């Protein structure tokens, strides 16, 4: 009997302790907190908005390794020229042959919008190029276009038109070495329609590159694929836009002097509003390659605030991710430890730089509102230290 009672009591104590739960104490403790009896009071929590100035900075960057070559225009981006370089080295058996006809093959893979075309002309470059270089303007070329066998100098490049005749005298001169060919520039013969593009294979795609195809007297044929190719893109619109491929970055500068030194930061964000009407996510060709329209961004704190310095181009990463450049929306890029580090003096405030994270691989554009209520700003949440009343 006694043993039973002892076990029952022990079980009751454990059951009571384990099974009961308490209500929140906050409401009944509030008066002790408010009148100071408890003696601890959390510091004030504030949200501050700090204006940000965004300045576009061009950091020339090549995109010679893209898998597609583009001509046309798209939301401020101007794909002005495609540069092609050929290696005309021939076998010993062909070296003495004469070209009877020649064609330049530009394997168009995608156009936008449907049935879009670009009027182009072909010119001999005056100097060669390297697709590992950064080329921000169309190189010098002979002003006179290369005619075809019928004397035509302009051609409509589109899905249905991808091979064009070349003057055989010129081709024989290139192949024989009598007139070395540094390269061919395929340029606009007339400004294309706004927001229309034509895309063709680059050699990096690994199949069916741009090529000069010849038929020798006697019927034999030969093909010379592009040994180097490059899309020359320009962008001249003002305002804060990050453009991959050109490498146009945006340098955001701000002043944190309004944050108290005693503050502890919960979170901070660079808040931007994207301009979907100006954004370029992917061309039709990009989508055909399985690429998405998302814009991968990289935000860093530069090692130098001097935009001309090489140190401006590198720094400490703050955030990276993707955004949809063709949708107008407010995005908040978390700054993580950047603001606390600046407030503690662990790093200098040289602003923040936003760039495409595929700057050397894809041509995309993310544009941001720059003024008015949509202007960029820093949003910082911080709390001041609690008041404990201190030691006596």
């Amino acid at each position, binding site marked *: 009997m006694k043993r039973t009672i002892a076990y029952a009591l022990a079980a009751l104590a454990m059951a009571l302790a384990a099974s009961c739960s308490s209500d929140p104490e906050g*409401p009944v403790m509030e008066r002790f907190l408010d*009148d100071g009896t408890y003696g*601890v009071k959390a510091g004030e929590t504030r949200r501050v908005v700090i204006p940000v100035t965004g300045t576009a900075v061009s950091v020339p960057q090549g995109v010679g390794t893209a898998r597609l070559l583009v001509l046309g225009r798209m939301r401020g981006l101007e794909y002005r020229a495609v540069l092609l370089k050929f290696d005309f080295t021939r076998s010993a058996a062909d070296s003495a042959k004469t070209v009877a006809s020649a064609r330049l093959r530009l394997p168009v893979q995608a156009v936008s919008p449907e049935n879009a075309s670009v009027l182009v002309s072909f010119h001999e470059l005056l100097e060669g190029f390297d697709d590992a270089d950064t080329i921000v303007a169309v190189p010098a070329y002979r002003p006179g276009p290369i005619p075809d066998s019928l004397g035509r100098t302009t051609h409509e490049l589109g899905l249905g038109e991808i091979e064009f005749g070349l003057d055989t005298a010129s081709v024989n001169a290139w192949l024989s070495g009598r007139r070395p060919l540094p390269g061919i520039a395929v340029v606009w013969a007339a400004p294309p329609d706004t927001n229309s593009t034509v895309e063709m294979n680059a050699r990096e795609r690994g199949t069916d590159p741009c090529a000069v195809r010849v038929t020798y007297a006697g019927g034999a044929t030969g093909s010379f694929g592009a040994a180097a190719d490059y899309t020359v893109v320009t962008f001249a619109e003002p305002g804060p836009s990050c453009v991959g491929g050109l490498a146009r970055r945006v340098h955001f500068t701000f002043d944190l002097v309004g944050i108290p030194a005693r503050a502890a930061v919960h979170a901070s964000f660079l808040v931007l509003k994207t301009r979907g009407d100006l954004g370029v996510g992917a061309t039709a060709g990009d989508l055909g390659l399985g690429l998405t329209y998302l814009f991968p961004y990289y935000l860093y704190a530069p090692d130098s605030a001097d935009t001309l310095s090489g140190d401006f181009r590198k720094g400490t990463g703050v955030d990276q991710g993707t955004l949809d450049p063709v949708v107008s929306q407010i995005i908040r890029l978390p700054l993580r430890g950047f603001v606390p580090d600046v407030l503690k003096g662990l790093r200098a405030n040289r602003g923040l730089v936003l760039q495409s994270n595929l700057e050397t691989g894809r041509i995309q554009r993310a544009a941001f509102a720059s003024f008015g209520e949509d202007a960029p700003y820093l949003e910082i949440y911080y709390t001041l230290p609690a008041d404990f009343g201190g030691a006596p």
Partner: protein
Amino acid sequence: MKTRVSAAALAALCLVSAAAPARAQSVFGASFLGEHRFTGSARHRALGLSAYAVRDSAYAVVANDAALADITSVTFSLFESFSSSGVRSGSATADINRFQLPTVMIGVPLKKGFAVGVGYRERFEGRGEFSYPLAVEGGSSGVERYRHRASLFAAPLTAAWKAAPWASVAASFNLERGSIVDVSTVLFRNELFGDVESRRDRSYAGVSWSGSVLLDPHSRLSLGAGWNSAIDYDVSESFSYTNDALDSSAAWDFRLPASWGAGAAAGITERWWLSSYYWRREAPDPAGYRQLSGSIGAERLVSFGVERRRAAAGGFFARVPLRAGYYENRWHLEYPAGRPVRSRFFTLGSGFNLPGGPGAIDFSLEFGRIGSIGDNGVDERVFRFSMSMSASETWSRRRSER
């Protein structure tokens, strides 16, 4: 060997573990040092904390250290308490459950009438965790959270001597230790937000001496008195913040004044006994609590109890002791100034010997109130269940060691 004492210790561990979900002491205990704990077994509590002059050979957890001289074998005792209360503060109410850490003592008789004891006694305890929604103008909403942990305890080394059949005395050296931690955290329910924490740690260290006597001038009358020296705590205080540039520390002294108490127990009949106790400590200087300046007064306990002791023979109910009592404890804390917080409790209880040998289990039920709406604007209606266990065993050398 020593299985009963080990089993009792294991049981204590189980109970402490099981009580983990409960939280919070009295809401008044989050201020100043916390809620005062009077030491003693559940028998002492069942008698309304009035058993200071009552001898009890079953326990090492005693109200009066001089009673430790009565143990005749190695005795392990513990006490713990579970409370459930309804708190009213203005229009706010809350039901809160509480668990108080055990008092644990082991007493060892070195020879007949002389015993030493060592253990752990909680002096003050305060626990609380409360939070409030935090609205940030123009932005995300957060939470303001407070966490309070206070524990001042003593590790006594006690010697008790039965100097005469009618007189026992005890002296105790107490290592006084403890900490009071307050943490204020502002947090947001968003993974991109970090918590901002401000924390104050106070570490208390000191020593004290205490002495007590237990006299039986008559077979139906016992008298007890005790005194505990002032405790001069060295307090180390550190502040730490998420913004660690603000971290700082300080050291200062805190003096808890001496306390004294006196009690009496008188037998009306062989089995029916009355008991009473008075205890007092003057107001400490509220060092470290400047917001409480003028709000700290003397602490006082007045208690009464009646016990029908168990009969050696007879039916079940005759062999079960019955206990009842009443006590009023005036806290050091006055809320607001001039209006002391008072605990008033009616108590009931009983107990029985451990099956199979020396030892006891006692329990008490307390029904009462801490604070009052009229005086303090806050009251807690409290039900408290306490239990103490004690296991005794005669220890001897192993045969191989003889």
